[in-house]
């Protein structure tokens, strides 16, 4: 496969590219879905092809083909250079590439059980079991369970001499129960909305004990129908770990993408409220806020050996003691602003242009526990599991909805509350972070559905988080 990638790079160079790289990617995935204790869909997918990237002046060109022959690879390289040349018809500043070590390496995701060796019927039976358990709870009308697995081999070659093979394995899933009342729908999910995904094998599914949690999840969904709604007001807000993970993803992870800050995503995903001249001085949040982008975390969904530009995975400080100190970058974007490249450029399959993506953007642990946080809270609300998310194009004004909440009064967890929402402005919100858990309560939550780019790409990202408290937040926003 290295020979095919080399042929593509040579084709691009021969056609005039100043720089070229190519990835041959063989990926297979399996997706299993069960609905109300009946199989809903079993889908296998295998994608194979080569994507080659060429740079001429300010213009990138990218071409992908599923034809894995040497001739097609070389032609793809020639096409990529022709596209790069067309880009220069509407030119910008010359796109420099930051230096990175040229390596000849390989990497494999640590794993115990190859998920593709586990019989599909075992996976279906697991999901039928949990969806059946949930369906037996009165009030629950719809139950679903999902599992998904990815096995990806990538061979990367650059015109500078990189030669990297990676074998990445990702696994995960989850289930949910939906209760229907008079004109209302309530849902509970486990381990989190859309499931929990990690790098690793089938052991990452087994450790979440699906059968042991199905009954509780369904009972909570049914109980929500009779629960009062969260009233509008200002409260101390305690967020469960997976919701705090999504809060990080939306209000930190995307905002620190250097391509957004540079305006490259302005028309679609948007820009960022962050200004580069304030890097190192802008207060992002309270002193408890310490965020890293760490692609080396074992088991986290955004971990790998090398990014799709051949830069080694690394841990980069993003927010330190509440001050913004780092960005997510690639070789071109980092070079433009004079920062070291962060190794955060990935493409969704062989046929998508690598671009700046989150790795594992998460909070360093605090020193409290959830019990201690609740005991310390006088007038608050504890929200868990995301139900809806929306944030503006500069990543400032957000509104989140959760599946469930509980009142917290004078240090005690009280009534269950439904339809909880909260809203805020990013730096003000993070400035309210006054308690943070850690230890075993910190989880590398995985987000398997991060969309960005045109054509749209889906990335798998990780977000380490434990429960945390925010001192004063507007909750209970209504239509």
């Amino acid at each position: 496969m290295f020979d095919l990638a080399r042929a593509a790079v040579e084709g691009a160079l021969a056609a005039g590219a100043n720089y070229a790289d190519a990835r041959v990617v063989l990926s297979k995935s399996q997706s299993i879905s069960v609905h109300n204790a009946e199989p809903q869909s079993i889908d296998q997918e295998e994608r194979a092809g080569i994507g080659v990237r060429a740079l001429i002046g300010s213009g990138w060109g990218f071409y992908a083909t599923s034809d894995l022959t040497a001739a097609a690879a070389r032609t793809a390289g020639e096409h990529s250079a022709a596209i790069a040349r067309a880009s220069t018809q509407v030119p910008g500043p010359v796109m420099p590439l930051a230096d990175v070590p040229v390596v000849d390496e390989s990497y494999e995701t640590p794993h115990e059980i190859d998920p593709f060796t586990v019989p599909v019927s075992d996976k279906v039976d697991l999901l039928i079991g949990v969806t059946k358990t949930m369906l037996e709870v009165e009030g629950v009308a719809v139950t679903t369970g999902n599992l998904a697995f990815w096995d990806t081999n990538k061979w990367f070659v650059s015109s500078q001499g990189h030669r990297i093979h990676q074998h990445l394995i990702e696994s995960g899933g989850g289930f949910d129960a939906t209760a229907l009342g008079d004109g209302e729908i309530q849902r509970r999910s486990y381990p989190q909305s859309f499931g929990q995904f990690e790098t690793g094998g089938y052991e990452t599914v087994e450790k979440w004990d699906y059968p042991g949690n199905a009954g509780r999840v369904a009972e909570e969904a049914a109980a929500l129908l009779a629960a009062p709604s969260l009233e509008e007001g200002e409260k101390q807000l305690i967020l469960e770990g997976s919701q705090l993970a999504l809060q990080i993803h939306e209000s930190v992870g995307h905002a620190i993408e250097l391509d957004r800050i540079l305006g490259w995503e302005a028309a679609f995903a948007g820009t960022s409220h962050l200004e580069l001249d304030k890097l190192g001085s802008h207060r992002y949040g309270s002193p408890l806020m310490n965020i890293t982008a760490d692609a080396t975390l074992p088991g986290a969904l955004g971990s790998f050996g090398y990014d799709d530009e051949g830069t080694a995975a690394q841990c980069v400080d993003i927010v330190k003691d509440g001050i913004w100190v780092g960005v997510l970058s690639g070789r071109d974007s980092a070079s433009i602003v004079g920062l070291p490249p962060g190794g955060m450029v990935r493409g969704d399959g062989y046929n998508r242009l690598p671009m700046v993506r989150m790795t594992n953007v998460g909070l360093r642990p605090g020193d409290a526990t959830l019990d201690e946080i609740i005991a310390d809270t006088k007038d608050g609300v504890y929200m868990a599991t995301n139900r809806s998310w929306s944030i503006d194009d500069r990543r400032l004004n957000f509104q989140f909805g959760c599946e469930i909440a509980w009142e917290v009064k004078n240090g005690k967890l009280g009534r269950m509350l439904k339809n909880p929402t909260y809203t805020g402005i990013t730096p003000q919100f993070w400035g309210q972070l006054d308690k943070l858990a850690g230890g075993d309560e910190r989880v590398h939550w995985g987000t398997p559905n991060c969309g960005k780019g045109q054509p749209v790409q889906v990335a798998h990202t990780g977000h380490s988080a434990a429960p945390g408290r925010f001192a004063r937040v507007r909750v209970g926003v209504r239509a």
Partner: protein
Amino acid sequence: MNRTVELAGHVLEKVNERAEAEVVVTGGASALTRFANSFIHQNVAEEGYAVSLRVAVDGRVNSATTTRLDNIDEFVDTTIEVASLQRVDESWPGLTAPVDVTDPMHYDEETAAAGPDERAATVAEFVAAGPGMRAAGYYETVGQSVAFVNTAGHRAYGRYTRASLDGIQQLNGAAGSGHATSDRIEAIDGRGVGALAADRARRGLDAFDLKPGEYEVVLAPECVGTIGIFLAFYGFNGKTHAEGQSFVELGKRQLDTSVNLYDDATDPRALGVGFDAEGTPGQRLDLVVNGVCRALAHDRRTAARAGTHSTGHGDPGSDQWGPIPTHMFLEEGETSVEEMIASVERGLYVSTFNYCRVLDPKALTVTGLTRNGTFMIENGRITGAVTNLRFTQSFVDALSQGRVHTIGNDARFADSEFGPGMLYVPSLHLESWNFTGGASG
């Protein structure tokens, strides 16, 4: 013989009599030229084929997709083998019987052959339309063939092209957007789309923070497109309806009498081929007639459960998400946007919605933001720009009886957050919209 047809036939031949099977082969090229800060910064193209196979072995079902043409035989064998190990799928609806499928001919040779130089030229026109501004956006061209075969003897084939130009012009913190989609590149006016975006950007200067609350609104087609796709995904979806999660009550007037909404893959203005992934031909499906909800989208599975027939919405993913109308048309009215604005005493004109998400799927209560041009209307004219606003609004309530003042005469393809080319809609003038937050919270 077209390569997609040839491949589909080969796969079916390989399946032989071992299973019920349906095969979809797509092939062709797509390319997208992206620009930001007024230069082309990303420029991509791809070509290739994808083979999808769904088999049922004595009611045991399995689906698989591959782009590898070098091991198709093994792909077929594995797909059948995995199916044979599954439980019986009690709701397997069987295959589509042979039926005539008319190719709506949403295809244009010039568009299929468009190269990076043509795309760059159109991008240059868009950029030039906003002198002194920073332009950003994309221009995409697609040309695909789709072949369908199944073991029941049904065959279908079609080709389609699409060209979409979407972008913004930015000026001193203000931004305006423009969009065009067609099945042919000759209909894409780079300068015109860029000029609309530039005009909105200029008008967006010196925006002020508006106090949140209920405001009368004139919504541009992009906003209406977003409303439409949420109605489609959560409402007119045969699966969510069967699960009791849809707002739709068939036969009941739930929307204003002026609202007529239909889905039709065969409409001359539509995009795509004239059949779905199960081989069911596209057809006109009247979803809302004079405000009354009349129909739901079905694939073969949801149709069998509901005791009806598929409406041709068995697309990839419909097993999981349900069948969703994606060739939607909201019938035009007779009012121009200028007339709409002139009739508003105090309200807002909104160019685009952004990042909309459902809070309550049953009531279709959605939160989202305005973007790329939100303007104050006072005494019948636009008097200034306002900063982006957050809203929390039931889309069904917003369109309910008496709350749709007028429907525009400016229907066109609108982008919708879910992608271009799915909704052909005009502007709308609505009684009120619930804005729940501003730029400062």
